[in-house]
């Protein structure tokens, strides 16, 4: 039977798909097919091209070359979610629900049933109730989305897809934000859908889950198709190896040995905060400490709490050997502690402002003289920053939103460095930027450390963690599961700690 449902039964097929964004190629001749009633996991590191492939499979992006076949026939998918009409539904990682509307309204959004010109509310409610009962979800069609938990919202998305007669359901990291129990419920749902003949594409970084739920697994690496195999042929370890398998190049600066006897500039003991469940670590002068782990493992939460961006529940923080009370962002800055956000467009830069006000915003008190902002000093600072960080803007008066991602990132780095911090926390230093700029940023980080600044690098890109860090802490579910040094810093080790296959007893 399994043999019979081979390639011929593919509902949707991507054949030799390549995709470039402007001059940047992200997918190189990738092929993948999804059959009815299978769970097909798509795995790879961040930036491997998984999201792009999913968006091409669901019509949100057009492939640059290659073709999509639907039921064996070449097809051009309608854009912007129009592929839902064809039964292909993509559930985005950031869920796509109208928060202030009810479950019923969301499920029928855009295709409400009517009777005599009015909404057939009773009919729609009955239909939604039936779906909810089938799925075993204990909420009412009249509940507001904003009152639901994330897991319930996810289920509503699935109900929405099912109600649209989805044949292919593509899910981007559906379990990233779910607890273990919620994940179990979710998987039972997936099994039901599968039994109903729905083909499911499932992206996850949790390799144990992938092993448990998937029938077949496709591995991508750097935009290349590596392999597609039945899940029984792979173990989480082999998956990790196949995802990684690459040599490090001279993208990274030569590593200076860290002085293991240097003073501890930052000590954190048993820190508890939202999303952080007891984290302890120390950071030495001139050290580059990496924080690795899956998205949502609490890395950002730890440092947002330390820098006064989120409340601390308990635990102690010591700076330069002295315990400090909970800080505001301004106090942290004045103590030489600066956090560079990973979300440069939403939290890092004022996109509708020019470079100058952006550059000086964080360290503005430094530019105040006689109660007035010294604009001459600001201009000089901008000139300096443009030189030091090689920010390339055709016109210095352009609004920051028009700069490229790489230049925005350099400007953000310049903004944070404007206060001359002793400890810098850089969250995802190279997200969404080109290789050339990545290299510049790595060299800059190494130079900072050589000057005696302590740097924390939070990154989901393992090669860069391995390439630039002296030590690496791996987090999982709000806790540090291991701290790696020297030769132990390799992708397999990190992946094992991050995926929960291995755990160091730290206390």
């Amino acid at each position, binding site marked *: 039977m399994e043999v019979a449902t081979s390639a011929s039964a593919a509902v949707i097929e991507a054949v030799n798909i390549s995709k470039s*964004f402007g001059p940047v190629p992200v997918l190189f001749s990738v092929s993948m097919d999804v059959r009815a009633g299978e769970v097909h996991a798509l795995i790879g590191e961040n930036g491997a091209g998984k999201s792009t492939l999913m968006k091409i499979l669901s019509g*949100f*992006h*057009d492939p640059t070359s290659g073709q999509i076949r639907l039921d064996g026939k070449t097809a051009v998918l309608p*854009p*912007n979610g129009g592929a839902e009409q064809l039964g292909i539904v993509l559930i985005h990682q950031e869920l796509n629900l109208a928060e202030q509307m009810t479950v019923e309204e969301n499920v029928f959004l855009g295709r409400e049933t009517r009777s005599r010109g009015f909404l057939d509310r009773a009919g729609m409610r009955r239909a939604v109730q039936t779906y909810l009962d089938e799925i075993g979800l204990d909420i009412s069609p009249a509940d507001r989305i904003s009152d639901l938990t994330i897991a319930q919202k996810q289920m509503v998305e699935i109900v929405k897809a099912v109600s649209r007669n989805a044949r292919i359901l593509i899910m981007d990291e559906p379990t990233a934000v779910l607890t273990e129990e919620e994940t179990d419920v979710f998987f039972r749902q997936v099994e039901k859908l599968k039994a109903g003949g729905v083909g499911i594409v499932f992206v996850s970084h949790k390799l144990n889950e992938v092993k448990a739920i998937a029938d077949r697994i496709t591995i991508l690496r750097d935009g290349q198709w590596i392999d597609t195999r039945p899940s029984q042929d792979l173990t989480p370890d082999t998956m990790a190896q196949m995802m990684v398998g690459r040599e490090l190049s001279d993208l990274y600066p030569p590593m200076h040995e860290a002085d293991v006897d240097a003073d501890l500039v930052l000590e954190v003991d048993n820190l508890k905060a939202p999303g952080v469940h007891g984290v302890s670590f120390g950071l030495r002068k001139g050290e580059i400490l990496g924080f690795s782990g899956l998205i949502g493992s609490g890395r950002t939460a730890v440092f947002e709490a330390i820098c006064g*961006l989120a409340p601390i529940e308990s635990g102690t923080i010591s700076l330069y050997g002295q315990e400090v009370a909970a800080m*505001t*962002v*301004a106090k*942290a*800055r004045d103590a030489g502690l600066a*956090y560079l*956000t990973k*979300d440069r467009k*939403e*939290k*890092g*830069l*004022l*996109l*509708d*402002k020019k470079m100058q*006000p952006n550059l000086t*915003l*964080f360290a*503005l*008190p430094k*530019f*105040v003289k006689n*109660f*007035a*902002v010294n604009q001459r000093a600001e201009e000089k600072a901008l000139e300096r920053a443009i030189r030091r960080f090689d920010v390339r803007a055709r016109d210095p008066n352009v609004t920051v939103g028009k700069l490229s991602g790489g230049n925005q990132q350099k400007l953000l780095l310049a*903004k944070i460095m404007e206060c001359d911090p002793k400890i810098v926390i850089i969250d995802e230093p190279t997200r969404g930027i080109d290789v050339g700029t990545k290299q510049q940023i790595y060299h800059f980080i190494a130079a900072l450390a050589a000057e005696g600044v302590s740097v924390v690098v939070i990154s989901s890109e393992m090669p860069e963690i391995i390439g630039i860090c002296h030590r690496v802490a791996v987090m999982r579910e709000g806790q540090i599961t291991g701290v790696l040094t020297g030769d132990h810093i390799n992708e397999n080790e990190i992946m094992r700690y991050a995926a929960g296959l291995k755990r160091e007893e730290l206390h």
Partner: protein
Amino acid sequence: MTMMTASEDGEAKAAKRVAVDFKTLGPALALLLLCVIGYLLNPAFASEGNLTNLLTRSAFIGIIAVGATFVITAGGIDLSVGSMAAAISGVMIIVMNNAVETLGTGVPTVLLGCGLAILLGIGAGWINGALTTKGKIEAFIVTLGTMGIYRSLVTYFADGGTLSLNFDIRGTYRPVYYDSFLGLPFPVWVFIGVAICGWLLLNRTAFGRYCTAIGSNEAVAKYSAINVDRVKTLTYIIQGLCVSFATIIYVPRLGSASASTGVLWELEAIAAVIIGGTVLKGGYGRIGGTILGALILTTIGNILNFTDMISNYLNGTMQGLIIIVAVLLQRSDWKFGKTPKT
């Protein structure tokens, strides 16, 4: 090919520069145009008496609008200013009338009233600010609530009628509205003072920069070590203070307060801010524009008084049209089109 792109670039830049200039100069040009129209309709428009009258009348809305510029620039809104002015006038009059016995009808009583007005303005502004920041209620809702509260308070104080200032105090207080210094009435001087302070505060200090940053993107402001709650609360306090100043110069004009004092001032103040080019959703504020906006609104009413062509009753219509046209002109994205699929 290269030449062509270069020249196209140049053209695009020139076009952009004209657009930007028009955006900032727009209110000034509109005011100039209104003045020319006013003069052509009736040369008496340009008489010294009319011009000082016009400036004095703009002072109330203008001063309040300077405060509103801060609130709006920082991404907030304050609908309570008109009611706040009425409530402060009411309390001022009651307290001054009651102070006659102890302090007499001289300057001390007036100073007491003014000092009280300032404290009330700061307090009312702080309440609006604290409810929006600490209470995490939307500014529109908070100030809609306080608007109703202040308005009903003044009606209550006046017992549904009018509160009148003691006749003798009125004599002492009168010069604050009616006297001049160097040819300009006092209210105009207050207006100028508030405008200059406001401009310096918004354009030259870290506080002004923080207001703009918060209005532009609150999360970025938070991550940039800005105490967002404090700065936002301060904008409402500045607004309250401006209302106090406006009230202090308004009370001697009529010497009374009633439920109809300051009705719709909030909308005129917001209109002045928007006509002046400040962005309603925050992130970009112009004090100079706000002042021009206040002058434009008063000038329209003034011109309608001078001419029979359009009924004076249509004042609101003209103001409304000006607001809509001003915002249409400020829109930078005139091009409509679909975002292409990547």
